[in-house]
């Protein structure tokens, strides 16, 4: 069953969500040189369509399990900019009380039960969380976000097998950005292979989609989410995309590794935001002042969050050994 194209309002919301993520990441990139954000940041500029398109289908009680590159997923799932920023600034008011930093956001109220920065670490946890929903006969689902690199870990394969075996309501979203740190996928996986096709052997649907086309992401993931909710089991989706910054930090890595300036330029041409803007403009869905108004809204919201983050107090000594056990 193919999901119909999103209506105009949904399209606007998808676009706005992508803009929000890009705005946030660009602000982090600008602020990072101040050296007050003392935690590694893995920026997702260029990959916004996946986070926006997937999370548009999720309810607050649906669960997501992300990775080191989690900012976009968390924002799309509704996490507060304030709490994320405060966490990046190492403050007690942050989403993990300052204990997690940028790699481990947690917001149970938004369906984020913590985040692993161990590659492949979150995938089986998504399966287990969805299994719990199944055992309780609930209709919430879980989504596992992970990169192409994570599909090389055993946890990925073990998770697919078990999810298919038990018909678990989980959607596996692989953001294939063609690199893991500086290693190109061709160094790590056979050229004749395919991530999406791995699903077949485990007996679940596997689909390759354009991760830079938010409408395609929305439609194809929507079908997978509906299948999971209806009790028809898991799906693996491989969304092809590209990150614009280096693996970690707001830097350009095209002069220093396997990624060439050409390759990056080609992908910038396929910018998911520009693509959607063009579409909305042609379809006459975007009002001329929309983008400007949203940008003002984001600026105001971010500025407030930044003040909050900077002015919050850092966790004090006594907190060092709290939370080791519940």
């Amino acid at each position, binding site marked *: 069953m193919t999901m119909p194209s999103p209506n105009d309002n949904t399209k606007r919301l998808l676009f706005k969500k992508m803009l929000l993520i890009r705005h946030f990441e660009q602000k982090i990139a600008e602020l990072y040189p101040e050296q007050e954000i*003392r*935690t*590694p940041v893995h920026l997702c500029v260029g990959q916004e369509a996946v986070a926006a398109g997937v999370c548009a289908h999720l309810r607050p009680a649906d669960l997501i399990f992300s990775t080191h590159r989690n900012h976009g997923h968390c924002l799309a799932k509704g996490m507060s900019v304030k709490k994320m920023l405060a*966490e990046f600034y*190492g*403050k*007690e008011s*942050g989403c*993990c009380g*300052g*204990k*997690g*930093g*940028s*790699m*481990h956001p947690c917001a149970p109220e938004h369906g984020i039960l913590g985040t*692993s*920065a*161990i*590659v*492949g*670490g979150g995938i089986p946890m998504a399966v287990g969380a969805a299994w719990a929903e199944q055992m309780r006969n609930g209709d919430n689902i879980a989504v596992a976000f992970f990169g192409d*690199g*994570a599909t*090389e*870990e*055993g946890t990925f394969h073990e998770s697919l097998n078990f999810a298919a075996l038990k018909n678990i309501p989980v959607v596996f979203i692989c953001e294939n950005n063609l690199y*893991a*740190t*500086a*290693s190109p996928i061709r*160094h*790590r*996986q056979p050229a004749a292979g395919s991530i999406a096709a791995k699903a077949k052997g485990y007996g679940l649907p596997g689909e390759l989609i354009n991760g830079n086309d938010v409408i395609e992401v929305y439609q194809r993931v929507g079908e997978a989410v509906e299948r999971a909710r209806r009790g028809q089991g898991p799906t693996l989706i491989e969304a092809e995309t590209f990150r614009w910054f280096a693996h970690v930090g707001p830097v350009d890595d095209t002069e*220093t*590794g396997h990624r060439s300036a050409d390759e990056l330029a080609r992908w910038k041409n396929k910018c998911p935001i520009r693509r959607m803007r063009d579409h909305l403009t042609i379809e006459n869905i975007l009002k001329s002042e929309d983008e400007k108004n949203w940008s003002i809204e984001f600026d105001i919201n971010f500025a407030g969050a930044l003040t909050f983050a900077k002015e919050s107090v*850092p*966790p*004090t*000594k006594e*907190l*060092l*050994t709290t*939370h*080791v056990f519940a």
Partner: protein
Amino acid sequence: MPWTTPSINISYASKNSKGIRELSYREAICEAQRQLMSTDSRIFLMGEGIDDAGGVFGTTLGLADEFGCERVVDTPIAENGMTGVAIGAAINGMRPVFIHMRPDFVIISLDQLLNHAAKWFYMSGGQVSVPLTIRCVIGRGWGSAAQHSQNIQGLLTHLPGIKVLMPATAQDAKGLLIAAARDPNPVVILEHRWLFDKTGHVPEELYETPVGRANICRYGSDVTIVATSIMVHEAMLAAEVLAADGYDPEIIDLRSIKPWDENCIAASVQKTGRLVVADTGHQYGGVAAEIAARITELCFSALKTPVRRITLPEAPVPAAASLENIYFPGQLEIIAAVKDVSGG
């Protein structure tokens, strides 16, 4: 010999001696690998992104160009499986050196390391040994937090069958890596990233720092400080302050965590009657616990005060700078412990 003379920020040999240059810890590791691969065709390097521009914090720079991608192998992100692959190659005549950028990733490979490599020789009745070297860079800071800056020497040493080394100097970074690569057993080397820029006088030749031998880096009379990795440098800094206050600590760089040089430490404690152990790891069941227990068994009557341990707090690594700054002990804790065991 480089391993017999105090060598922390002090030259053990005149700079004019033949073949001894000042090299950084990072360069010493790189040189060891280059020389090992040039002289032994069985040796090869493998690991995630080891041929990247960064070259594992500079320790593999140039090696992929020199030896090709068949001997400097960028691997999939699959630590446990690839460790098994390395074991397979090792038991069939090769000498792999598997490199990890963080100890936390070694934890994923513990099944192959501990259930397989550590006991293969024993289970086979001494027929098949596993000459595998694991290099692992430990680091800390900048909010790397709970999954990117753990200390795992205590974990690795608990089960029999794995050797664990922690070089604190450039000389030993080279000498211990060479010893590990020639060892017929699985050996894990934990290299501290904060030491990578420290220089020392490193012989040009291929030499081994013997596994199981500690290094006395400061002779003293009234307290023994046994330290691992970066804590050796913290202890040397502490010694300057302590000496000014009239204390005379003897400082021992453990270097080899398992097996460890209990004779050297026992002899020192027989002389000083006091022991402070400063490890980069956790306390419970850890390296400092083992040394404290064993030295108490060996030197009970010589000890004037209970052994003191300086270790990480009983908590995972926090991200916030305010907590990270107090999480890692250093010279101040060592100074306080020495004064404490010395009764003032």
